[in-house]
């Protein structure tokens, strides 16, 4: 049970945050705001889930935002400019993302390159390719797509979960399952906990590492697809800095950047904390550009400290 404390702490902080905001702003505590929280942060959430795996393995991936942008632009361009059917365009984009991630994983694993640099290069590359596909944002015009976009689950008065949010939740459930009930998931934890041990224990370190980055490439591409559903367009400049948001969400969710420790479920908490802070500041609406930035950072700081304090409660004697 003790292992779950950081996750509980994350959700406790989330609830505290949400309660405070609800107290301060009218109409904050509504089903609509909560549903929006999921819909608006769906693609951040999906990248954060992929990122959770990477971080659990002790790595990092800076390319997620750029891969998302590439996927969006690719899908939009294929559908609008080249009249592909969405059901062709989206899977193709997902495959490209997966292969791209896998390639980075290969370089990292095979040549023992630092993930930071390889994925930094991946970020530049994917961003450049996004602009190569189209230097402007493209809107997607396709009846099937519009129909997809309009799919939603009504969860309350004026509150609906859009298709993106539904995909996000599905990915979340799947990721939790993979992390905790499959050998692949456990190997990720082992590699992150101690890579040399994992190797000496005879775990398939090489293939697992490659798979992790491939999986994350897939998640980034899926996030890109979800983003096109969210906005109905592809924007090559989208997702700049998304990687940092995703990393922050993962870490706020109680996962250690050193690898091996953390939970996918915590990441959900991290994403929602992030989103709630943003929503609360939008509801406030009184801060100018600089106070807004200062406020975001101060709130982040407060809630990270709170989360740490809560999870420290039961720290075992030896660390």
């Amino acid at each position, binding site marked *: 049970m003790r292992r779950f404390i950081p996750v509980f702490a994350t959700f406790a902080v989330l609830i505290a945050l949400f309660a405070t905001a609800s107290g301060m702003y009218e109409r904050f505590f509504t089903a609509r705001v909560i549903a929006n929280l999921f819909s608006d942060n769906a693609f951040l959430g999906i990248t954060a889930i992929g990122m959770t795996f990477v971080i659990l393995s002790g790595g990092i991936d800076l390319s997620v935002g750029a891969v998302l942008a590439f996927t969006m632009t690719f899908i939009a361009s294929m559908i609008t400019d080249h009249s592909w059917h969405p059901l062709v365009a989206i899977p193709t984009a997902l495959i490209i993302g997966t292969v791209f991630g896998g390639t980075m994983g290969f370089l990292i694993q095979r040549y023992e390159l*630092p993930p930071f640099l390889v994925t930094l290069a991946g970020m530049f590359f994917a961003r450049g390719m996004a602009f190569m596909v189209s230097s402007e944002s493209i809107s997607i015009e396709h009846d099937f797509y519009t129909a997809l976009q309009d799919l939603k689950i009504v969860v309350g008065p004026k509150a609906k979960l859009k298709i993106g949010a539904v995909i996000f939740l599905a990915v979340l459930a799947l990721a939790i399952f993979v992390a905790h009930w499959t050998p692949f998931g456990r190997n990720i934890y082992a590699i992150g906990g101690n890579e040399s041990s994992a190797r000496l224990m005879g775990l398939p370190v090489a293939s697992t590492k490659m798979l992790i980055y491939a999986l994350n490439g897939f998640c980034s591409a899926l996030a890109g697809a979800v983003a096109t559903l969210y906005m109905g367009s592809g924007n090559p400049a989208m997702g700049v800095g998304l990687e940092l948001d995703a990393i922050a969400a993962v870490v706020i969710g109680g996962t*250690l950047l050193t690898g091996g420790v953390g939970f996918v479920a915590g990441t959900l908490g991290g994403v929602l904390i992030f989103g709630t802070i943003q929503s609360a500041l939008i509801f406030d609406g009184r801060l100018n550009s600089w106070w807004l930035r200062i406020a975001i950072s101060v709130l982040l700081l407060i809630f990270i400290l709170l989360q740490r304090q809560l999870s420290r409660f039961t720290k075992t004697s030896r660390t």
Partner: protein
Amino acid sequence: MNDPMAKPKEWFQGGSLVWPLLGLVALLAYDFLFVDGFFRLEVRDGHLYGTLVDILNQGSKTMLLALGMTLVIATGGVDLSVGSLMAISGALVAVLVTQTEMSLAMIVPIALAATALLGAFNGVLVSVAGIQPIVATLILMVGGRGIAMLITGGQIVTFEHAGMVYIGNGHFLGLPFTVTLVLVMLLVTSLLMRKTACGLFVEAVGDNETASRFSGVSTRSVKLAVYGFSGICAGLAGLIAASNIKAADSSRVGEMMELDAIFAVVVGGTALTGGRFNLLGSIIGALLIQTLTTTMITQGVPPAIAPVPKAIVIVAVCLLQSEKFRAEIGGRFGRRASA
């Protein structure tokens, strides 16, 4: 721990400057062959003038950031806030220079003290509060820019103060003054690290924090110090950036420069996992990235796809440094797997 894989991420012993240098030389060779006038140097108004000089001058900011970042990374951390700290020091200086009568001898220390303090604040978050470095410094990365904009009221504050203008545009001994600044900082840092025990402590903390603490090293102070130092370096870089354009552009200055700095450090032979570091390597790494940027501008690479060649160069340099890759390519390095 006598097994070879205990640190698989360790990629090569901090020490070898050969590979980053080779990368730099290769790039310069390309420029020599394909870019007209890249190596043209002339003397104008008593100082050197040419693309190479520009690279030194423009690269000085990244070099300074990389110096501070090297130590932070050596302790196993990372500092994302350097860009925002640049903005803060630039903003402070611009505002003080234009709105007060203070002399530069007062203003510069004030600005550097401010960024040092903010850097130390990062250090507190990391070492005392135990927040992970990426997130701890992300806080100041976001908030610091807010502070900088607060100082300038969101405006671009321009100045004409001769002393301030000199820092980023002046010349000393025929070279941009920034070169002297970088050299002095490099020298001071190297001396500090090698002639005192600071370097030992930094490397020990980065390599095995627990063991260092058990040996009586004050790991907290070490971390506070390196983040503070990184703050000072960022402050200096901010001064140069502001001086360069005779203005404090607090909302844009230093954006994404943290990535350049980290790139420089890692290419220069300091592993992100901490431990051994190499200051000179970081400087070379910074030069590499600046040369690349300048090359792309002069080569007329369309800006939208400019990241692609950048990516290729990064991967190429990485592969060059990978012993495994060299072994695979060269073959004659034998099948000796890297330790």
